[in-house]
């Protein structure tokens, strides 16, 4: 087990390192993104341009530049933006994190509750019209582009029905929980629903198939044979084993979303979270911020992956060999 953990850890570091190098290289290999001219300003003199390039170390060899940037990001933690000069990068990420956490946490609560209900309903009534209907509804949720759904929600709540049913919906944007818990809730309700609709369908399906599979398994049959009621079988045995897959999937998705995976939802609802920060920095080709947000996102994805793997390894010794 220890060897497995060590192995996972090394490959985690390797993946993070590769991603930082790749992001760095991709950015500097792209023509036209050399920030010197943008930093120097409109119609800057050639000599000024040269001086700016030197100031920002843009005339140094690539490995040195990479090293400098990583040092500023992780050691001295004073990396500054290329676009908003003087603006430190790390505080931008730490300021954006609570917004993303609020969004993802609320959405997760909704999707977990709704998908457990739907998945169990479909699993119990397997093969009936209820099963088909529930699954199709879930699939419809999966099939809509999330940014489009967000826009439709905005169209209804911010414009078409804003005068009547949805007059209580605040303008797009985030309200800090510490500022006003009720305002926080109101501002996030529709983003939560929009984001969770995608996941409800997926999780309900995972749960359903797990339940169905578990019902086929011997121990459930044994439990039934022992004369336990159908409901107790479902809750005690089937659900408990089904939840392992469910929980590990949840770990992966939650990790990706906290890292900024809810980018499109944040953009559409004007929430200044990590995803929006990533999006803006990409739009602005602001490398220091891109690197910081990409590393932040990759960290959560990789850690979630590793944790899920560890849980599997712990539960199932065969995985450790593979």
């Amino acid at each position: 087990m220890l060897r497995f953990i060590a192995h996972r850890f090394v490959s985690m570091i390797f993946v993070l390192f590769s991603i930082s190098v790749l992001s760095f290289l991709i950015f500097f290999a792209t023509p036209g993104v050399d920030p010197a001219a943008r930093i120097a300003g409109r119609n800057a003199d050639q000599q000024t341009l040269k001086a700016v390039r030197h100031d920002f170390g843009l005339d140094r060899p690539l490995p040195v530049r990479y090293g400098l940037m990583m040092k500023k990001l992780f050691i001295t933690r004073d990396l500054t933006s290329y676009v908003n000069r003087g603006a430190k990068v790390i505080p931008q990420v730490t300021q954006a994190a609570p917004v993303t956490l609020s969004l993802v946490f609320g959405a997760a609560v909704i999707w977990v509750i709704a998908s457990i209900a739907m998945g169990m309903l479909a699993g119990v009534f397997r093969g009936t019209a209820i099963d088909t209907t529930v699954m199709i509804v879930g699939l419809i949720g999966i099939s809509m582009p999330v940014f489009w759904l967000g826009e439709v929600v905005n169209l209804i709540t911010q414009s078409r029905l804003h005068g009547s049913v949805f007059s209580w919906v605040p303008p797009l944007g985030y309200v800090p929980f510490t500022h006003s818990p009720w305002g926080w809730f109101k501002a996030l309700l529709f983003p939560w629903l929009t984001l969770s609709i995608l996941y409800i369908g997926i999780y309900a399906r995972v749960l359903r198939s797990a339940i169905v599979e578990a019902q086929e398994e011997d121990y459930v049959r044994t439990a039934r044979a022992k004369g336990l009621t159908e409901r107790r079988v479902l809750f005690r045995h089937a659900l408990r084993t089904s939840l392992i897959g469910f929980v590990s999937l949840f770990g992966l998705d939650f990790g990706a979303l906290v890292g900024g995976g809810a980018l499109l939802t944040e953009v559409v609802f004007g929430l200044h979270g990590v995803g929006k920060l990533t999006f803006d920095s990409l739009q602005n080709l602001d490398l220091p911020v891109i690197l910081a947000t990409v590393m932040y996102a990759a960290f959560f994805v990789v850690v979630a992956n590793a944790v899920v793997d560890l849980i599997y390894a712990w539960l199932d010794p065969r995985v450790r060999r593979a």
Partner: protein
Amino acid sequence: MRDRKSLIALALVAVIGVVATGSSSARTTSHRGGTLKLLANAAGGTLDPQVNYTLQYWQLYQATYDGLLAFQKAGGSAAFNVVPDLAASYKITNGGKSWVFTLRKGIKFSNGKPVTANDVVASFRRIFKVKSPTAGGFYNGIVGASKCLKTPATCTLAGGISGKGNTVTINLTAPDAEFKYKLAVPHASILPASAPPNDAGSAPIPGTGAYYFSSYDSNKLLVMKRNPYFHVWSQLAQPDGYPDQITQSFGLTVEAQVTAVENGQADWGYDFPPADRLNELGTKYAAQTHLTPLTAFWYAPMNVNIPPFTSLKARQAVNYAIDRNALIKIFGGPKLATPSCQVLPPGFPGNKPYCPYTKNPGTTWSAPDVAKAKQLVNESGQKGAKVVVISANDEVQKAVGVYLASVLNEIGFKATEKAISGNIAFTYPQNTKNHVQINVQQWYQDYPAASDFLHILFGCESFHPGSDSSINMAGFCNKPINAQMNAALKLENTNFPKANAMWAKIDRAVTDQAPMATMFTPKHLDFVSKRVGNFVFSKQFYWLVDQSWVQ
């Protein structure tokens, strides 16, 4: 004839002086106070007035920083007049090569320290030390500037600037009639000698204006408060403001900005309102919507060094084919823009209406001549050439790019449109290595002189192959025309009107060579909240925010 211009200026000074004193008594009473809340989608970058080159902050610098000279704080074209600011007076000697300034007494920075000749000298050196974008463009005429450009860190401007008591002398290598304008833009702001010798970024630097920046967080908020050490020394150069505090908060989308101003939660949004809200602003909120013509133009530079636009006929064909009336619809309709074919905008020094690229060539544009355009493309031998139109990816510019691609396809090219990040849309097309054929740009004046359009955008001196800073995006370098430009620049020193007549001819010549397709002259739209009063729009620096009241 330089005298006539200053006479007009004097007359205006008199008129505005009266108006201004009239309102200055009101200023101290009922309307004074409150917080003016401004909005912007994103921050404008560094707050350093000698580095920042965005309209967003130049507008705010008007109330926070002063130069030796200043553009008059007034509505309309009067804003093009240059008046003494921190200098009480100045005289030009030595055949236009020496400018001698006498500083006003008793002016203090917002940190309480008095303004001295030493601060002035240090500020001019700092332009080079912080590598101001215009260090090479505006201030390279100062003696010693070339050395400073090469080694900014040790810049002294020896022989170029000296201060003694309250006199500052600036020596130029050659007379420069436009130097007064260059002294009146924010890059020539006078800052304390103790200001850091590099870009101050988000740390505010003390200034002399009626307000000072008290805090700046580029993700949230910029706050301007009254400068406690400020007193009015010139109503024209730096009047007192009405609000006690001015804030600009960042992060709201343009849609949300408009809604917030409609609801009175904010007073003004920096960004241009989205097309689908314009009708609403023009009808329900007409009283709060201010439209002002700008001295600017939207144009499409065509790279004369890459096919198909190496051919003059191909370039002219594009000019003939663009339906400027249709194009203006993208911008919000004829109330928001005027068709144009030439470089210099209406009302600008040297402008003489000229439009060869229309159904009935003459002074104004009337209708496109697509038949002629198709014929020209045939004659150019470039029919069927592939063209990529580049534009920024915001709503309006992208739509203009898409329209251009459609026009190019119609007259026989094979065009696609590519929208790129607004952040690189200005620098990317400049570099010849990126092989941009045609792109959507707009140019807003720095100061009211024809050279700011013609010489900067189409002069050989601003074409630098392989550099991201090569603002002559067409790569247009026509030796005879360039010689005329340099002659006109020289003539400005002795005879301004004659020089302007010459610029008018140059404007014609450049338009005939078609290194660009001019599209239209835009108007500026300011949408303010109900409570904002006394809206004054300076043609130089736009809405003078501190001259409006909120109560």
